[in-house]
């Protein structure tokens, strides 16, 4: 009974399943504010705790989860979950207060200002002690691991980047290194820096609120919790040897064979679509992909500026608007490419190996 349940979970697990699930979960939970009450935190904690306890009885699951280096990632999972809940709990609470004409949480103090000594210093002091105790207990209980000495001739069967870069490593499945390793990190860093220069509205600064900042929070949660944290979780617990995908209760078999026959867009069109071979000249060969790519970055901003995003366009001005659209489209490009690979086995949209230029 339990075994067949595990079997079932293993067989429906896949990156596409988990990604779709987490996107739906995020969307649904933001739609219903009941998700962000104390009670649903309790329910969520109970469910995930129960699921965890159930899973820990499984040998394969335990083997991966109990690795000392994976502990911080379990902590990350629960901490991000908790703090997402906390911030949205406070945000919805404030929204309700505003609607009811009450003062928001941040405006309830009897004295607007207070002395650093003792009020802040004591908080810091307590936080510091708690942090020290946690760290020391953790360090005494759990030895930091070490593996075999380095050997350049022998790649171990599951080579993973440090855990905080596993999101990037997952992107390597869908993009070439120059995109996943150079372009995307640069866009993430520059995009983060650009945030305050795009979203300049002073309203909504200094307190939690969802209603007043809905689009910003949606985009940020999508980028941070799904495209970053979720991919790290996926990379840690579900990517085994050879970066193959394994279900939660599956044994990490080094010899698991996964057929990967991915096809470029050019081949789809020239060979399968038109039935003629690939043209010799790379420009001709890739022209559809190039047009598609340019269109992806040019057409939506243009159409949206006249449609749904008109108010943004008018408020931000052309430069800020284009920057925002570029960043948004770059971010969306990742899930789009993921689904293209899963559904159509599409490898590259533009593939010019002559110049190491593959997208």
């Amino acid at each position, binding site marked *: 009974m339990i075994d067949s349940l595990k079997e079932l979970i293993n067989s429906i697990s896949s990156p596409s399943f988990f990604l779709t699930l987490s996107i739906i979960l995020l969307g649904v939970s933001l739609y219903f504010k009941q998700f962000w009450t104390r009670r649903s935190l309790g329910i969520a904690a109970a469910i995930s705790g129960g699921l965890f306890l159930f899973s820990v009885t499984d040998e394969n699951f335990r083997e991966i989860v109990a690795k000392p280096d994976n502990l*911080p990632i379990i902590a990350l999972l629960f*901490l*991000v979950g908790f*703090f997402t809940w906390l*911030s949205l709990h406070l945000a919805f609470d404030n929204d309700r207060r505003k609607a009811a004409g009450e003062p*928001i*949480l*941040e405006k309830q*103090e*009897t004295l*607007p*200002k*207070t*002395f*650093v*000594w*003792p009020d*802040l*210093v004591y908080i*810091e002091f307590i*936080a510091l002690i708690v*942090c*020290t105790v946690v*760290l*020391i207990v*953790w360090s*005494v209980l759990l030895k930091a691991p*070490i*593996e*075999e*000495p*380095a050997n*350049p001739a*022998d790649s*171990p069967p599951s*080579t*993973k980047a*440090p855990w905080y*870069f596993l999101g990037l490593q997952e992107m390597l499945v869908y993009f070439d*290194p*120059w995109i996943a*390793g*150079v*372009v995307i990190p640069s866009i993430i860093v520059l995009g*983060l*820096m650009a945030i*305050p*220069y795009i*979203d*300049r509205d002073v309203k*909504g*600064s*200094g307190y*939690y609120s969802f209603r007043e900042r809905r689009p910003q*929070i949606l985009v*940020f949660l999508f980028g*941070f919790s799904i495209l970053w944290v979720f991919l790290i979780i996926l990379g840690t617990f579900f990517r085994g040897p050879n970066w193959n995908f394994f279900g939660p209760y599956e044994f990490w078999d080094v010899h698991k064979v996964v057929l990967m026959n991915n096809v470029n867009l050019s081949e789809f069109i020239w060979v399968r679509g038109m039935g003629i071979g690939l043209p010799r000249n790379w420009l001709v060969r890739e022209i559809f992909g190039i047009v598609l790519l340019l269109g992806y970055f040019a057409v939506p901003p243009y159409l949206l500026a006249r449609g749904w995003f008109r108010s943004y366009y008018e408020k931000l001005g052309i430069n800020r608007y284009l920057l925002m659209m570029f960043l948004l489209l770059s971010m969306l490009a990742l899930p789009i490419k993921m689904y293209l690979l899963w559904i159509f086995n599409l490898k590259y949209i533009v593939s010019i190996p002559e*110049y*190491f*230029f593959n997208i």
Partner: protein
Amino acid sequence: MKKLFTVKNTQIWKSIFRHGPPEDRRNRSLAVLANVFLHLHPVKVRSSSIRLRYTWCMGGLTFFLFLVLTVTGILLMFYYRPTVEYAYGDIIDLREQVPLGAMREIHRWGAHAMVISVWLHMFRVFMTGSYKPPREFNWVVGVLLLVLTLLLSFTGYLLPWDQLAMWAVTVGSNMARATPLMGTEGPGTALLVLGDVKLVHAGNDARFFLLAGRFVGAATLLRFYVLHCIAIPFVASILMAVHFWRIRKDGGISGPL
């Protein structure tokens, strides 16, 4: 109690603390103003913004973890030698031969914790909209600190010189080979030729710059060691000073208008 009182009346005590016990407004102000560490803070702060539920104390914890890592890192440096012959053995010794030896553990788990806390801090700042004017620049400084935190962690990853370290860094740094125009396998690099000579090759590209060699080897270990122990902490400290200074200059921790 009486004893304590006499201690406080000695010349030594008074030479250190130049004000009375922080029990009234004047002396509470002085407690902050007269102390070089505490005067990172202003004398008074917005009540709402020091609530634990508002900041989660995440920035403070990140800074505290940075200090813990500095101290434990200095201790580790007394024994660790960044060479291919010794590095691995030194780590094994630190791990197994030290009585009460949790130094490596505190350093490693603290590093993990700092990465998490810096993300959560950024998350908090975003969710409270605290990056908005006038705090735009401090947000940018924060993003740089985030990058430096990750780089600190990444350079430290190589130092144990085990299989995990070597291959994680091999995979990680290989992406530098694909830097457009600056890596041997980057898009467009093939166009940078003088006649038959490739201008950018494995012996001078972005990855070579990072690793000080074609492969992860002895020179890489030394390079990462210096980056990890000196160069990045140095830059990060400067940026943290700017970060803290700007918090005050931008009107203190944010709060509703």
